[in-house]
C-alpha cells in the first residue's frame, strides 16, 4: 500500500480503509459529514464493515457508510447521490457517513461525470441499492426473530417487529444481512413519502473545504513523489524537433529532462483520448517551483507539423480524421467561416418547402451570430498522480470518467485492467475538460519512465493553452414572414471550427411548417472538447436572440411569442423526432412569467431580457435584469426557472443554477480565446477575462417546476439560455443588438467612442 504524507496530522484511518470488498483503497478524503474522524478511528477496521450492495457498508455498532460512486467536480454528487441511497435505505441522514467510492464499474456503476448524467443515470440504481439493503436487513431481522419478513418495519436506521415488541439497529443485523443474496425486484418508496430526497442537505465536504483540508489531488503528497511538468509547443501546428537541457539540468532540484511519445503511431483513439501534442518534453524534479524555474532554461527547437491522420474508434465505428498542418489565426478563422457560410452545407432536417416559402415571403429577417473558442479554466489546473511499475499502475487524481480512461491506460501501459487502480479525488472544477485523459496518460508514462511516483502538474499557462476548447461557432438564422407577419419558414445554417453546433430537431423545429437546418465544419488543428452543454451553449445564444428579434419584428411579447410557437408544436407538430416536450417548455416559461413579475409595472425600470432552452432532457429559462452601473450595463438580478424533474438536494440545486447563470453572464460578456499564428493570445487570467465578484448579479432567484418526473439533467441546462437572455437585455439597455460574443468587447468600444 502506498504511504501518504498529508500535511495535517492524520491517524490510522488513512491506512485502515482496507475495505471488506477486498478492494485496496487509500481514503484520503476520509469519511465525511458530521462524524468526527476520531470517532471513526476505533471502528474503521476492514473486517467490521459489512457490505450491503456495493454502495452501503454498516458496522455492527451501527455506523452507516454510503459510498458516492461518481466523480465530484462541484455538482454536489458526493452529497446528493448518497442522499438517494439513504432515502430508500431508510436511515437518519444526519447519522450517515459518506465516502468517495473506489473505481469499480462492476459494483458502483458507470462512474461518469458529464452530460448532466450523474443523478439521471444513478437515480434508479441507487434507489434500488438502498431498497435492496433495507430488505436484506429486514430479512436478517425476520430470521433472527423468527417472524415473517412482511411484519418487520424500518424507521431511521432501526428495525421493528410491532407484534412482539422487538427492535434493533441496522448494525445489529448487518453481519447477517451481508450474507443474504442481494434481492431482485425490490419495492421502491412512493416519491411523495420521501424525507431525505427533496430536503436540502449541506455539502458533506463543506467543513473540509472551508478549512483547507487536502481534498484535491494537487494537495496530496506521497512518499518519494517527484513533480513533472511538460513543455508543450508554443502553438498549435508545431511539434518538438530537438532540445538542449544542459542548463535546465543544472538547476536545483532537477532530476531528469527527456522526451517521450504519448501515443505510438497508428494508435486507435477512443472518443475521449483527444490530445493536442504527442511528443512530450518532460522536466522532472523535486518541487513544482523548481521544475517551473528549470523549464525557463530549456533550449527547444520546434518544427511545423504535417497533415496527420488520426484513427478514432468508438461504438459508432472507426473514423479517420486528418488534422491539418498550419499556424491558424482568429482573423483567418473568421474569414473562412464567412466563406463557408455561403457554400452548400449538409442538410440536417427539412420540413415542407422552405425554398418556396422564402421566395414568397413578404419580409425576411436574417441574422448571423458568432462565438469564440472558450477555455474551461478549471481553478485546479490539470494534474495527476501516477505510480507505474512493470507490474501495476496506481493513478490518483481529478478525472470525470475513470471507466473510460482505464482501457486507454491498459493499452498504453500494456497492463491488464485489474492491475490498474484509479482513485478519484474531488476535482477543482471540470466543465467537460476532465472527461479527456491526456494528462492522466502523460503522468502514467512519465512515472514508468522515471521509475518513481510522479505528480504531473500543469501550470495555468499550460492548462489554458493546451486546447480541447469549446469550438468556435457561427450560425445564420433566417425567418420568412407573410404579409400578416405570420412566420412561414425558418432556416438555420450553422458551422464551426472544427464541428457545427446545430441540433436540428430542437425548438423551433416542429413549430414551423417550412423548416431547414444545415451544418458545415472547417477542419483545424486546434483541439476541441466537451464544454458545459456542448453545442447547446452556442445554439441557445443564437437562436434565442434571433427569436427575440423576430418577436419584436412581428410586434409580440417575447414570452407570448414563444408560447404561441410551442402551442403549435404541441397541438399540430410539424415533422418527426422533435426533441422536446412542448408542455414542459411551456411550464418553465409560465412559471418564469410569474416569478419574475414579467408584466409587473414596477419592473419596467430594468432592461429585461428573456430566453429559454431545452437540453440534457431538462428545461431552463431566465429573465435577466440589467441596469446601468458606472455608466456600464450590469446584470443586477436574474430570475431562473428549471424543470429537471425531481430535485434531490434543493439548496445545492439552486447553487448549481446560480453558478450556471454567473458562468453564462461571464462568458457572454468576457469569454474568449483568440489565436495568432497558432499561438493562444491568452494564457492566464490577466488576458483571459473571467467574471468577478463585482460583475456578478446581487440576486439570482431560482425556482423549480414541481413534478414527480424522474430526474433529468441539471449541471448544464441552465447555462445555454443565459447568453441570449443577456443579449436580449443588453438590447433593451443599449438599443443595440449583440451578435458576436463576447459582448463586452463591443460595449467597451461604445464607451470609448462616447
Amino acid at each position: 500500500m502506498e504511504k501518504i504524507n498529508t500535511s495535517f496530522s492524520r491517524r490510522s484511518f488513512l491506512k485502515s480503509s482496507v475495505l471488506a470488498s477486498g478492494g485496496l483503497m487509500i481514503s484520503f478524503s476520509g469519511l465525511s459529514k458530521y462524524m468526527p474522524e476520531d470517532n471513526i478511528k476505533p471502528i474503521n477496521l476492514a473486517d467490521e464493515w459489512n457490505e450491503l450492495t456495493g454502495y452501503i457498508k454498516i458496522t455492527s455498532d451501527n455506523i452507516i457508510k454510503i459510498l458516492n460512486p461518481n466523480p465530484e467536480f462541484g455538482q454536489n454528487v458526493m452529497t446528493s447521490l448518497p442522499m438517494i441511497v439513504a432515502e430508500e435505505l431508510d436511515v437518519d441522514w444526519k447519522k450517515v457517513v459518506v465516502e468517495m467510492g473506489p473505481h469499480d464499474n462492476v459494483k458502483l456503476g458507470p462512474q461518469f461525470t458529464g452530460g448532466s448524467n450523474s443523478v439521471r443515470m444513478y437515480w434508479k440504481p441507487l434507489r434500488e441499492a438502498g431498497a435492496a439493503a433495507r430488505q436484506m436487513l429486514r430479512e436478517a431481522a425476520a430470521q433472527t426473530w423468527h417472524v415473517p419478513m412482511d411484519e418487520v418495519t424500518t424507521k431511521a436506521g432501526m428495525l421493528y417487529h410491532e407484534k412482539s415488541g422487538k427492535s434493533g439497529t441496522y448494525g445489529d443485523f448487518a453481519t447477517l444481512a451481508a450474507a443474504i443474496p442481494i434481492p431482485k425486484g425490490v419495492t421502491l418508496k412512493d416519491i411523495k413519502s420521501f424525507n431525505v430526497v427533496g430536503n436540502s442537505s449541506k455539502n458533506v465536504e463543506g467543513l473540509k473545504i472551508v478549512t483547507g483540508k487536502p481534498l484535491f489531488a494537487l494537495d496530496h503528497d506521497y512518499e518519494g513523489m517527484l513533480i513533472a511538468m511538460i513543455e508543450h509547443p508554443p502553438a498549435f501546428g508545431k511539434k518538438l524537433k530537438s532540445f538542449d537541457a544542459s542548463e535546465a539540468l543544472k538547476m536545483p532540484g532537477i532530476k531528469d529532462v527527456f522526451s517521450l511519445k504519448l501515443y505510438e503511431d497508428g494508435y486507435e483513439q477512443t472518443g475521449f483520448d483527444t490530445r493536442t501534442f504527442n511528443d512530450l518534453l518532460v522536466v522532472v524534479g523535486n518541487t513544482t517551483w523548481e521544475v517551473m524555474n528549470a523549464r525557463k532554461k530549456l533550449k527547444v527547437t520546434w518544427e511545423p507539423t504535417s497533415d496527420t491522420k488520426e484513427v478514432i474508434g468508438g461504438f459508432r465505428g472507426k473514423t479517420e480524421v486528418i488534422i491539418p498542418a498550419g499556424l491558424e489565426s482568429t482573423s483567418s478563422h473568421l474569414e473562412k467561416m464567412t466563406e463557408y457560410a455561403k457554400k452548400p452545407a449538409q442538410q440536417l432536417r427539412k420540413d415542407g418547402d422552405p425554398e418556396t416559402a422564402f421566395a414568397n415571403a413578404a419580409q425576411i429577417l436574417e441574422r448571423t451570430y458568432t462565438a469564440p473558442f472558450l477555455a474551461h479554466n478549471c481553478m485546479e489546473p490539470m494534474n495527476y498522480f501516477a505510480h507505474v511499475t512493470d507490474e501495476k499502475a496506481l493513478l490518483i487524481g481529478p478525472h470525470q470518467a475513470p471507466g473510460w480512461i482505464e482501457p486507454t491506460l491498459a493499452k498504453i501501459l500494456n497492463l491488464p485492467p485489474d492491475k490498474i487502480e484509479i482513485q478519484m479525488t474531488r476535482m477543482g472544477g471540470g466543465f467537460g475538460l476532465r472527461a479527456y485523459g491526456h494528462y492522466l496518460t502523460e503522468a502514467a508514462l512519465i512515472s514508468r519512465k522515471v521509475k518513481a511516483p510522479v505528480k504531473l502538474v500543469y501550470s495555468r499557462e499550460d492548462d489554458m493553452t493546451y486546447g480541447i476548447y469549446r469550438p468556435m461557432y457561427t450560425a445564420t438564422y433566417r425567418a420568412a414572414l407573410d404579409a400578416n407577419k405570420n412566420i412561414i419558414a425558418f432556416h438555420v445554417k450553422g458551422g464551426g471550427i472544427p464541428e457545427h453546433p446545430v441540433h436540428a430537431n430542437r425548438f423551433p423545429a416542429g413549430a414551423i411548417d417550412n423548416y431547414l437546418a444545415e451544418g458545415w465544419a472547417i477542419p483545424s488543428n486546434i483541439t476541441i472538447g466537451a464544454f458545459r452543454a456542448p453545442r447547446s451553449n452556442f445554439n441557445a445564444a443564437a437562436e434565442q436572440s434571433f427569436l427575440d428579434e423576430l418577436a419584436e419584428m412581428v410586434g409580440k411579447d417575447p414570452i407570448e411569442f414563444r408560447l404561441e410557437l410551442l402551442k403549435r408544436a404541441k397541438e399540430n407538430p410539424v415533422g418527426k423526432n422533435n426533441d422536446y416536450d412542448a408542455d414542459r417548455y411551456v411550464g418553465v416559461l409560465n412559471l418564469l412569467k410569474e416569478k419574475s413579475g414579467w408584466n409587473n409595472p414596477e419592473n419596467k425600470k430594468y432592461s429585461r431580457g428573456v430566453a429559454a432552452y431545452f437540453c440534457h432532457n431538462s428545461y431552463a429559462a431566465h429573465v435577466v435584469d440589467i441596469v446601468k452601473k458606472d455608466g456600464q450595463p450590469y446584470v443586477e438580478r436574474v430570475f431562473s426557472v428549471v424543470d429537471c424533474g425531481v430535485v434531490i438536494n434543493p439548496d445545492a440545486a439552486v447553487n448549481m443554477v446560480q453558478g450556471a447563470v454567473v458562468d453564462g453572464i461571464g462568458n457572454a460578456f468576457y469569454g474568449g480565446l483568440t489565436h495568432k499564428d497558432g499561438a493562444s493570445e491568452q494564457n492566464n487570467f490577466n488576458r483571459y477575462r473571467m467574471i468577478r465578484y463585482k460583475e456578478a448579479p446581487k440576486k439570482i432567484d431560482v425556482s423549480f417546476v414541481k413534478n414527480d418526473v424522474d430526474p433529468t439533467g441539471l449541471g448544464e441546462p441552465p447555462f445555454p439560455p443565459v447568453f441570449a437572455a443577456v443579449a436580449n437585455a443588453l438590447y433593451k439597455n443599449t438599443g443595440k443588438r449583440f451578435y458576436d460574443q463576447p459582448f463586452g468587447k463591443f460595449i467597451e468600444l461604445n464607451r470609448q467612442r462616447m
Partner: protein
Amino acid sequence: MATFNLDINGKKQTLDVDPKTPLLWVLREHLKLVGTKYGCGIAQCGACTVHFEGNAVRSCSLPVSAAANKKITTIEGLSENGDHPVQKAWLEHDVAQCGYCQTGQIMSATALLNKNANPTDEQIEAAMSGNICRCGTYVRIREAILSASSKK
C-alpha cells in the same frame, strides 16, 4: 539558498530555501500547508490569498524573503476546527461548489471583516474582486459575508 525565520499561524520556524521562492510554494511544498491554493501564479485569481500582517495578499507573488519575520496567517491558522465566524457563514450558506477557490475567498473576506465589521456593497466588491470563482458562487459569497458581518 538562505535561511529565513517564518511566523506562520503563530508558529515560528526556520527554513533554508531559495529567497525568490514564492510564499505559496513554501507553504504548499515545504510546510505542507496546502489549504492555500495555486491558481494562476500571477496574482490574478486570489486562490493563494493569505494574511500578511493582517492584510490579504497573493502568496504566489510574494517571495519568501519578503515574508520573513512577518505575521502570516493561512486558512489553517484561521481557526482550529473551522469555527471562525466567516467559515461558519460559508457553511451556513453552503457556498462551495468545487471548493477549490473558497479558502482564498474566505481569507479575502476575513481580512476585510477584521478591519471593517460592516462593509458596504462597494467595499465588499473592492475586497473580493481579486478572487475568481469559476463555479460562479459569488451570490452566496456575498450572502455569507453579509451574514458574517452582521454577527460581529
